[in-house]
């Protein structure tokens, strides 16, 4: 067995090595000797075809040389070859993660007439995770998002490359442009790629998302909040975003029923996020209470009660106590209906969740009021038993 192992190792080493590295040396030399674009193109094809990382420095200097000599190639055939050569070199530099070439790649992305070569240069910046260029790529995409380019196809290609690059860079500055690209003027291919990239574009996209929630349309607020919910941001960051959305969702008045429904959708999503992330702070209590009192529908009101119950803080328990006492008082006054009963039962059950003594008086009041149905009284008694 040992003999076989040794043979195998020899095969592994010898086979992989003897046919590769002199080729690298020779093709590097041939590139240095090459005269004119066709010869350089041929030499670079060979060099790149080797897939050898150690060729990155010479490829970078080749890119610089090509960028300097770009104006020499004005004939259509030459321009095509020039673009194709830049594209091949740019891709290889990205593959090899040769960050020293980042400045040249950015220059290629700006100045080379060939769109595919520009796009390749942008993607290579992403591939090598050249963070210094994250903002510039984000701004480029932001600018492309604004309106269709004269040549739509060119704009699409560049936007696609920016999305790919920003997805690799994983920088929060890339979030907003990719977010807007997902609903931009582009074809489905670009929009889909942007939508797919969004959840992973930054570990914590909270800041750009809060910015979108603060300034954009209700539909975008909802999409942004959903993106925050789907993101890898920590719970407290998701909670602060949900609180912002909940409060803004109450501040803004719907101009019609459709808009009121959208605002309710925003608030419901925020309430769900508060529940899932087990919010226990005081900031969301007023918004939760407002959703209970002025909610668009019963679903929102029930979610608000649940969020208050899960919260369990003194302010949340106080809010639950007060609203249960109010319901109890209404009941005593003969104001009763099926919806109120449903809300009362939910409020009592979520009050039990708080395990906070503050809610006790309201539960006791319900438990001894025989005007309530037996189901609600039993719920109140059970909730009291759950109290510490």
């Amino acid at each position, binding site marked *: 067995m040992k003999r*076989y192992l040794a043979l195998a*190792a020899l095969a592994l*080493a010898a*086979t992989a090595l003897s046919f590769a590295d002199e080729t690298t*040396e*020779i093709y590097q030399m041939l590139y240095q000797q090459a005269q004119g674009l066709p010869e350089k193109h041929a030499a670079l*094809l060979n060099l790149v075809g*080797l897939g050898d990382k150690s060729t990155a420095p010479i490829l970078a200097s080749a890119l610089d040389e090509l960028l300097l000599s770009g104006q020499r190639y004005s004939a259509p055939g030459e321009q095509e070859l020039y673009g*194709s050569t830049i594209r091949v070199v740019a891709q290889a530099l990205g593959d090899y993660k040769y960050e020293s070439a980042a400045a040249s790649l950015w220059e290629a992305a700006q100045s080379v007439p060939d769109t595919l070569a520009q796009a390749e240069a942008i993607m290579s910046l992403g*591939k090598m995770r050249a963070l210094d260029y994250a903002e510039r790529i984000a701004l480029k995409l932001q600018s492309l998002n604004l309106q269709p380019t004269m040549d739509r196809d060119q704009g699409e290609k560049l936007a696609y490359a920016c999305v790919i690059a920003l997805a690799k860079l994983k920088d929060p500055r890339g979030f907003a442009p990719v977010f807007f690209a997902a609903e931009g003027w582009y074809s489905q291919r670009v929009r889909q790629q942007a939508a797919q990239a969004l959840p992973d574009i930054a570990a914590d996209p909270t800041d750009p998302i809060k910015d979108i929630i603060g300034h954009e349309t209700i539909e975008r607020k909802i999409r942004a909040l959903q993106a925050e919910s789907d993101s890898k941001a920590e719970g407290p960051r998701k909670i602060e975003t949900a609180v912002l959305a909940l409060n803004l969702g109450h501040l803004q008045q719907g101009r019609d029923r459709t808009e009121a429904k959208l605002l309710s959708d925003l608030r419901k999503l925020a309430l769900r996020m508060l529940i899932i992330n087990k919010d226990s702070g005081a900031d969301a209590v007023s918004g939760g209470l407002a959703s209970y009192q002025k909610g668009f529908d019963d679903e929102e009101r029930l979610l608000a009660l649940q969020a208050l119950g899960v919260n369990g803080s003194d302010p949340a328990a106080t809010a639950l106590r007060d609203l249960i006492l109010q319901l109890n008082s209404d009941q005593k006054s003969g104001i009763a209906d099926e919806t109120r009963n449903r809300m009362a039962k939910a409020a009592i059950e979520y009050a039990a969740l708080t395990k906070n003594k503050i809610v006790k008086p309201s539960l006791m009041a319900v438990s001894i009021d025989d005007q309530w149905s037996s189901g609600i009284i039993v719920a109140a008694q059970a909730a009291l038993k759950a109290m510490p």
Partner: protein
Amino acid sequence: MKRSLPCLIFTLEIVALLFASCATKAPPPAQASAPPPQAAPAQPANPTPAKVAKQRTVERKVPVLVKESSFYPDGLADEYIVYKLDDAKKNVIEKDVYDASRPDPIQRVVSDFKDGRLASESVFESDGSLRSRRDLAYDTSGLPAQETIFDAKGKPQSSSAYSYDASGRKAEWKALDASGSVKAVSDYAYGSSGLVGVEMKDSGGKPAGRIELEYADGKLAKRSYFGADGSLQKFESYAYSDGLLATVEYRGADGSLVSKTSYSYGPSGELVKAAESGPSGAPGEYTTYEYAVRVDDSVETYYE
């Protein structure tokens, strides 16, 4: 990583064959003819009956590379390569390179085989357009003799011509330009362990550099690169564990470590991971390899 892929695939097959798990597929069938006397094992001194040669079919499980995934140092997926094999799982007919975040291949390499040998390899860009094609021609011994690179329009770009010594080892490589003029020549020298040196010359026959290979216990231990002026440029050191290549250290002329690649293997000796690290030892990118299993049948003679 890409440079050595074709070699690596070939190598993995060798490695896999050597490590192939063997299982007897069927009971040994009776052999009609007696073994030739010289092939029979030495007979014991006691008067036991002579052993008879029999044959049996042996099943060998050979891992064949089907996927290669590369990752950033933090574990984020970078790209992956899917190898499509022919029905017999012997040849890679297509290599699709994917960016981990994109649904379509960013590059495809399609191979054509003729008479069981690689005849051409075409590289396609992400938009489906042809980037280049490489055609291979073989000599009468079946060894690669000519290799020509064509551009997207089918125009020859450059070519290579290979010649071999009597043992079938590569003796010379000529790099030619599109017009067929020799641009560089490499001569190969061999010792008892294998290739020991490569002399590179330019089109005028002037030295362009050389590579020296040193062996220890029959295994490659060091490879050094020298410039045209004869000065050492860089070198690589190879270390082994359990007979398998464990690390390759890439060093500058002054001996300073530039980078290091460590290799891990699976139970059949197949390469499963190659991890790079920087001069300070900080982890770098890494690549993992996945395999399918090919079952090869072969007839084995044994004595009973």
